[in-house]
């Protein structure tokens, strides 16, 4: 029997894969035209905020510093009209292990994968999520494959993406770099 590996055939499986793997009926949590019972969703999946904080804490994710940007606040007030210039604070998500807030999400996926006994993690991303997944996979002792959209037809790369390639490889992940197109999700 010849399996159809064309782009169309593989992508057509996506809704079925989502249903089978995630198994969540999101409609259940829609409580109004603009409201969603997020806490209900979290608690039904077993990942309420206390559990999340605990899991993230095990790999030094989260609890990031809240930093007041005093110079920026003063600058804004120096050039703004009267009554303008709220205090500006920032949550320093770069303080997470792989350098971005994506660690928060990746740490839960890695936890779930390890719990279920999967041998590894994979992600299709040219951005920070790749480094986050590679970092969490390394911490959990899981294998990792990151697929990136990384170069154009003359082989040119964007430094931000090349830097993510380097980070993922440094964390011990296999990094598959593809030429431009949406097919990273297909691969």
């Amino acid at each position, binding site marked *: 029997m010849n399996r159809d590996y064309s782009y169309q055939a593989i992508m057509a499986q996506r809704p079925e894969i989502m249903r089978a793997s995630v198994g969540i009926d999101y409609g259940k949590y829609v409580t109004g035209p603009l409201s969603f019972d997020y806490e209900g969703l979290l608690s039904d999946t077993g990942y309420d905020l206390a559990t999340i904080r605990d899991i993230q804490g095990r790999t030094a994710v989260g609890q990031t510093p809240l930093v007041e940007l005093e110079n920026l606040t003063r600058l804004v*007030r120096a050039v703004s009209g009267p009554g303008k210039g709220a205090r500006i604070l920032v949550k320093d998500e770069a303080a997470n292990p792989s350098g971005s807030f994506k660690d928060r999400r990746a740490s839960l996926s890695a936890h779930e994968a390890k719990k279920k006994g999967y041998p590894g993690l994979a992600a299709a991303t040219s951005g920070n999520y790749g480094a986050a997944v590679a970092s969490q996979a390394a911490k959990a002792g899981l294998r990792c494959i990151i697929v990136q959209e990384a170069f154009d037809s003359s082989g040119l790369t964007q430094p931000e993406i090349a830097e993510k390639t380097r980070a993922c490889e440094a964390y011990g992940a296999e990094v598959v770099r593809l030429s431009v*197109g949406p097919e990273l999700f297909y691969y």
Partner: protein
Amino acid sequence: MPERAEKDTWVEIHNLVLEKGQRAPQVPEDTQQVPLEMKVKGFLLQAADVGQEAEIITPAGRRLKGILTQVNPAYTHMFGRPIPELASVGREVRAILQERGRGK
């Protein structure tokens, strides 16, 4: 003389994933006309020459074949030169803060 790399060397290989004409339906015409290419790094399973077919084992443990392109590839990305139009921003900001921002 092609460069030869021994077994277990960290290398990069290149191959094609989709031929031209097999691309995702939504890509623009110029993208439809080029194949989807892939590059990946791993450790050589047997000695090979640059420009010839090689087989690697990746950090995730997959065995992949492709044309050997680079031996112990360097990271060559950089962030270019400073932007001249932004060069004075630091000085201007410090001046504003010193002269107008004090005491707030």
